[in-house]
């Protein structure tokens, strides 16, 4: 081996790498972004979860229990006036879990053990299995300890009464009561696949055609940009719609994970989302000068799209600014819709806001894709 030659080769490689601003940016930004995203933003623990609270007892004992929960600092408590408001907030995703203290809480603290005169209910959305499991275990432990402490401190208002042990902590899961993680992951996987694969496939299409000269040729024919756009996305959209059908079938037959909602509705929404992702791919392609650049851009775009869209980690656990960013990803809304159909069996009416967001993003991206094909700078 000739050391001089190796040095010469290394020098050339370093120069080539450092002179490409895109590569340098990627080499610096990707590790930092990954570190921040994975280490700081993404978390499946319960810290910072918004916890709904309804205190139907309104006694010093119940207030002490709630004070213990608040003092723990793990949750962000939010008070609700009644139980139905709490359930609505859980369904709407404003809170991740909830604690309901019954009216008889104070009296039950003095009841004999095992009589279970009052139940402190812990409610959570079982659709998010990991977080739900963690939150439930954490809350049960914390509430149990707090009640024990109340008992030990004589938290009951009447001294000399019988030891209060008539309070039980029970959990109730909204949706996915068996806490089966498969439907949750299956519904999310649609988002991952339809975001990454579709974007990647179209990302190289225009840039390849441009290199071969066929795109320029296409642009001087009477075909309009809209016709070219539709000619590109509709066949791929059709293929991916079939893909979605196959995935639904495979998940149902092999894993037993069928959508609780309407399958045709799910395929229709997914097909529209495919068109949105294909449009994003076309934008990437039209703004890239080589297939390699298009692939790099796709990977760079898809990583945050997938990681921050709630596919693997709950968005509500992320810092607030990141949650705002997540809202501008079409994947976030699609994954919500997908899980709502799979796990909660929701239909178009319940999902109207998310569907509207998908529609807005879809039309926006298709518009940008069309503009990027005009090429009349």
């Amino acid at each position, binding site marked *: 081996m000739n050391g001089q030659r190796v040095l010469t080769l290394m020098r050339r490689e370093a120069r080539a790498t450092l002179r490409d601003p895109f590569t340098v940016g990627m080499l610096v930004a990707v590790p930092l972004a990954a570190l921040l995203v994975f280490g700081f933003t993404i978390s499946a623990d319960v810290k910072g979860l918004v916890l709904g609270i309804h205190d139907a007892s309104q006694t010093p004992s119940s207030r002490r229990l709630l004070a213990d929960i608040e003092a723990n600092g793990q949750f962000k408590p939010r008070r609700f006036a009644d139980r139905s408001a709490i359930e609505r907030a859980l369904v709407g995703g404003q809170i991740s879990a909830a604690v309901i203290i019954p009216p008889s809480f104070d009296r039950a603290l003095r009841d004999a053990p095992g009589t279970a005169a009052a139940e402190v209910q812990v409610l959570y959305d079982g659709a998010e299995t990991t977080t739900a499991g963690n939150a439930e275990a954490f809350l049960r432990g914390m509430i149990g300890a707090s009640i024990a402490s109340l008992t030990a401190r004589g938290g009951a208002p009447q001294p000399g009464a019988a030891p209060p042990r008539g309070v039980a902590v029970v959990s109730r899961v909204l949706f996915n009561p068996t806490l089966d993680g498969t439907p949750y992951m299956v519904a999310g996987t649609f988002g991952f696949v339809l975001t990454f694969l579709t974007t990647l496939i179209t990302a190289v299409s225009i840039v390849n055609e441009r290199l071969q*000269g066929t795109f320029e040729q296409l642009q001087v*024919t009477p075909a309009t940009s809209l016709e070219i756009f539709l000619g590109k996305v509709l066949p791929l959209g059709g293929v991916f719609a079939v893909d979605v059908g196959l995935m639904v079938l495979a998940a149902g037959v092999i894993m037993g994970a069928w959508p609780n909602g309407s399958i045709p509705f799910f395929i229709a929404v997914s097909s529209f989302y495919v068109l949105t992702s294909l449009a994003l791919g076309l934008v990437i392609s039209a703004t890239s000068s080589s297939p390699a650049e298009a692939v790099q851009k796709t990977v760079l775009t898809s990583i945050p799209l997938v990681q921050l869209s709630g596919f693997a980690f709950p968005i509500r656990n992320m810092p607030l600014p990141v949650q705002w960013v997540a809202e501008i990803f079409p994947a976030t809304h699609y994954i919500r819709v997908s899980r709502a159909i799979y796990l909660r069996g929701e239909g178009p009416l319940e999902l109207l806001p998310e569907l509207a967001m998908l529609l807005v993003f879809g039309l926006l991206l298709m518009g940008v894709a069309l503009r990027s094909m005009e090429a009349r700078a």
Partner: protein
Amino acid sequence: MIISARGLTKRFGDFVAVDDLTLGIEPGTIFAFLGANGSGKSTTIRMLIGLLKPTAGQIELDGVDVIRHPRAVRDRIGYMGQKVSLYQGLSLRENVEFYAGLVSLSGAALEQRWGALRERFELGDAEAERPENLPAGIRQRAGLAVATLHQPRVLFLDEPTAGVDVHNRAVFWDLIQEEAGTGVTVFVTTHFLEEVDYCDRAAFIDAGKLLVDATPEELRRRYSGGYRIRVGVAPGALEPAASALRAAGYTWCAEADGSELTIEALHPAALAALHSATRGAPVSIDQPAMADVFRRLVSAGAPP
């Protein structure tokens, strides 16, 4: 004029790619547009065919305002870029059907048109082949055939003979001249300067500015040392021939092995004077190379 551009300018930031270019081309003309790499040739073509919006200026093609209605000219033009724009993975026949579909040509009309082109461009054997498997010369011919499928009024050819061997280039130019013979206007860029002689007119562009726009003969007259004519005259006939030519206004230089005459252009009068003065003597004429013309032109920075 079938193509008319006035004050055409294109800026990319501070860089002026095309600077106040004015052109007028008559129908049926083969117009060569020449210049070094980066001189503004492709930018000009892209503006003329409506792919790029000029920063300033006006373009009219076959009576259509290209800047205002870029799409309206597209069924009147045929275009063939530097890379022959046939889809790989599709056979030539499938490519033809694809492009024909975009210009609403199908059924019997397509068969009739393609049948004629296939025969004229000698593409029968290539029809089932994929473009990537065809030799460059045949691929270029196929590209030209596809570009003329819809019988455009103007053909834009951007370096159509790049990478093609000498024989196939000649065949290709024969086809271009045939097209022009049917009234099609051909706007062509090329790096092969000798190909200018296939053209009716040639324009040179340098750093975005038009240097000259003239016929090949006029370019030679203005930007070369002129035609060099060598005449093998018998010693006794030298002086009478020289006198006859001097009388006709031409310079005669006696050489050791004969005589040499230099004239700016091959005018019929010069040829007649030469013929009468050197009757029976062997004559060889050196045409000034277009590369020399181009070199002199660029170094002179000639105005149009």
